[in-house]
């Protein structure tokens, strides 16, 4: 009986109940994962936690959720989230309404704005740190703007050259949109 399960092919779970967004039920879902072989150019938005193990260029905005950049993750983007944890490489500004954690394996070039910032010894970090009040950070976060003091978002037109793969990622709750304003014909 127990061995039988091993032989069963893996198939999408036929959910007995329709899946509901976590915000509505309080249910904790596994974070969406951008795998190590995935590259995204464009904006990533969504309503669930996200783990990045691959490459992302553009902008990541999950104001009410957590973003984790794994050790193999390579991100060239501004990240706006509730909690941001970096163990890989990030070039861009981070704004979190709760906390930013830079792990010892991280290479982080950019500015950090959050009420709490944790830097592990040994991490590679160049940039500024602004630990502002939670309310102020939340305002900056919900406004969808990176114009908090010391954090300025500028469209990186250099991304346009590699925009051909834009929009190749589309997981439930997390969507990558091609940033057509940057795309070259």
């Amino acid at each position, binding site marked *: 009986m127990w061995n039988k399960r091993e032989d069963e092919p893996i198939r999408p779970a036929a959910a007995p109940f329709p899946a509901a967004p976590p915000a509505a039920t309080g249910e904790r879902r596994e974070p969406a994962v951008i795998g190590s072989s995935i590259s995204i150019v464009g904006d990533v938005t969504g309503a669930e936690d996200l783990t990045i193990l691959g490459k992302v260029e553009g902008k990541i905005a999950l104001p009410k959720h957590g973003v984790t950049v794994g050790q193999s993750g390579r991100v060239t983007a501004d990240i706006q989230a509730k909690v941001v944890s970096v163990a890989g490489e990030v070039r861009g500004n981070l704004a979190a309404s709760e906390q930013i954690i*830079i792990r010892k394996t991280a290479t982080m070039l950019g500015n950090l704005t959050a009420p709490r*910032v*944790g*830097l*592990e*010894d040994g*991490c*590679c*970090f*160049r*940039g*500024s*740190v*602004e*630990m502002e009040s939670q309310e102020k950070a939340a305002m900056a976060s919900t406004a969808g703007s990176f114009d908090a*003091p*010391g954090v*300025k978002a500028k469209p990186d037109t250099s991304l346009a050259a590699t925009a051909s793969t834009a929009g190749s990622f589309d997981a439930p709750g997390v969507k990558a949109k091609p940033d057509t304003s940057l795309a070259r014909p």
Partner: protein
Amino acid sequence: MDSLRPESRNTVLDLGPPLAGNIKFLSALSCRVRIADLHRSLCAESVENRQPEAMGALFERLLPLAPDERFDALLAWDVFDYMRPDQVSSLMARLTPVCSPEALVLVFASTRVRIPAAPLRYRILDRQSLAGDGPLQPERASPRHGQPDLRRMMPGFSVRHSVLLRSGIQEYLFARGAREEGAKARAAGALTGASPRHSWFRRR
């Protein structure tokens, strides 16, 4: 630390490595902290990039500055002991224009013949004390920057405090424009705004 007024928003440039405790301490003083981790950045550069003629471009790349960027204090720690004089001069040429008129620079210069292989990591414990971590074994020759050397490398700044510590480290607090202010004060017959230690040195 007393010069960093909590009621005003100060920006501190830390040339050392990122240390969570220091950032937390300075943030509690309403400071915005910028981390340069200069020694690590310089070591990661190629020999060509570190040539004297390339220093200007190198620091522009390592220390990109926003148009409205202003620094009220620079924490150089002992990083200058691990840089050539031309590197320090290039660095200060880049930073001096973006320092506020009364900006302060904290510099530790070893008076010993040999120093550890890499800069120490200075942790701010409280307003009065620091702890230095790192390999303490002397492994390389010290440049032994004296006060005249540092003043040459940092035009526009002059020494406000100078203390020789038991460890052989000379601690300097440079202030931008302090020399001019001091000269004016002396001309007026009074040493205003200078600390007792500063004025004591002047009287000597």
